[in-house]
């Protein structure tokens, strides 16, 4: 009986594939071919049509100038080292501060209400101001108070501004994570006799942080790009170095070069975040 049904469903003993599998395989091949053809068509169209635009020669000379790129790229690459340094100093500080703010935002005790209020105001204010303004105001304002070198360095205060701005965003990410942990987890922890602190430390935070890791990676990518904003208060990092070359050569190619460098640095991180998210989704739906 069962063999009969199998034959009826079209099992082909020679290839070991059902009729459905054969059909699906064909459909997949077909869609692959269609995708390849349409991609090729688009690429060819761009390749043919864009150079036909009357301004193409000008755009090519101003944006895709090989001579300018080769002359400027090495120094831009070394300017990017400064971006990386600032990033690796700022990122841990941001996470530490953000976690503290998020915990302050979550205190429930009435006596500690000032802490909670401070966290609310902190997050509201710093999230509402454009990052570039925070950098300007802190980067120029605080050193102007009369601090002596080296404590008036734009590197220090620029990093402080980035840390303040980003910790407000990331505190909200942590808070979302903390609030996403089901009340039953807290009840269980309490019933085991854990204190508020231990509950947070051993039960809530480990789950909460794991849950927001993909979002955090996304913010890290944004941070790496926003480090370039520090160039507005003096440091000659990649964006500024590209700007100097742009001005020197009256050519935008250095900006394209800077974009390439940022791409190479951020795309792996973006893919990593995608991977983490996919993994988490798979685990959740299991």
């Amino acid at each position, binding site marked *: 009986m069962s063999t009969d049904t199998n034959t009826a469903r079209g099992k082909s003993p020679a290839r070991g594939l059902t009729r459905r599998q054969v059909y699906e395989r064909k459909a997949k091949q077909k869609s692959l071919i269609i995708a390849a053809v349409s991609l090729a068509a688009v690429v060819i169209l761009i390749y043919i049509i864009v150079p036909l635009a009357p301004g193409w020669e000008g*755009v090519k000379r101003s944006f895709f100038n090989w001579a300018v790129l080769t002359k400027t790229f090495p120094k831009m690459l070394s300017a990017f080292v400064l971006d990386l340094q600032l990033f690796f100093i700022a990122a841990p500080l941001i996470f530490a501060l953000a976690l503290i703010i998020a915990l302050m935002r979550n205190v429930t005790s009435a006596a500690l209400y000032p802490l909670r209020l401070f966290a609310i105001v902190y997050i509201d204010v710093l999230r509402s101001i454009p990052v570039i303004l925070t950098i300007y105001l802190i980067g120029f304002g605080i050193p102007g108070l009369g601090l002596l070198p080296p404590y*008036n360095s734009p590197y220090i205060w620029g990093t402080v501004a980035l840390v303040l701005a980003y910790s407000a965003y990331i505190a909200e990410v942590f808070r979302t994570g903390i609030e996403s942990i089901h009340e039953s987890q807290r009840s269980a922890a309490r019933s085991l006799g854990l204190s508020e602190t231990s509950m947070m430390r051993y039960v809530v935070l480990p789950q909460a942080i794991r849950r927001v890791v993909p979002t955090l990676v996304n913010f890290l990518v944004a941070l790496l790009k926003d480090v370039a904003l520090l160039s*507005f208060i*003096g440091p000659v990092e990649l964006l500024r170095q590209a700007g*100097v070359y742009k001005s020197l050569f*009256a050519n935008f190619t250095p900006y394209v070069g800077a974009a390439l460098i940022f791409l190479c640095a951020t795309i792996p991180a973006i893919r990593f975040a995608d991977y983490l998210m996919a993994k988490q989704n798979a685990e959740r739906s299991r």
Partner: protein
Amino acid sequence: MKRTLTTLAAILLASAATANECSTGNTLTADTLTIATGNPAYYPWVIDDAPESGNGFEAAVAYAIAGKMGYDNAHVAWVRTSFDGAIQPGAKNFDFNLQQFSILPERAEVIDFSAPYYTTTKAVVVTTANGKDMTPATLSGMKGLKFGAGAGLSAATFLESAVQPMASTLLYDDVANTTAALQANQVDAVIFDLPTALFVTGVQMDNGKIIGQFPTDVNDSPDHFGLVLAKNSPLTACVDAALSALQADGTMATIEDKWLASGAGVPVIDMSK
């Protein structure tokens, strides 16, 4: 017949008053010369950010050139562009653009420059408060300073080749930010072109001081400022002709005396010590 003559005379008069042969048909708007400057335009180049008044060195130069080209003040229109707006490919929204663009061979590959309308040196400004007020200024003294400069100027590359300071130079978007960094002691000294330095130390800062200007034989110094026009613009030749006429009849010297403070008293930096 009489009427025809009058009409003819009127036409001749009108064309004489509005445009000369050189630029006719080549301007952005017929019978009007469209001139671009920065946003904002700074002292002493344009006074009160109002180029329409003709006050300030560049505003006055612009009107003088327009006049020589046959455009009276009523036939001049002003627009604002950034540096990037002046160099971007594609159609320009100005006939010529003046905002202290230094004439550089690399830049001349994508835009046209007129002949220079002004030549200046780079000057070093310090505050008397920060103890970097060295006299006389020498090259070895300069090497120990932490410099700030405008990113749009050629100052960064100039410093690297001519001075090679030990600390890395900080760069800023405009004169105001550069001055702010100097006043906050974030840099020891800043570099401006001499007229800007004279203005900043004379008007904007209480304790600003020019310690010296770089000698004219150092590479990239002096700076020649030129008008920027679209690459291969038919107007470049007209503007050059107008400029050389203005230089020959002494108008340029008069404008310079009127709007720019004299830098004659500023000491020259000793590049041998």
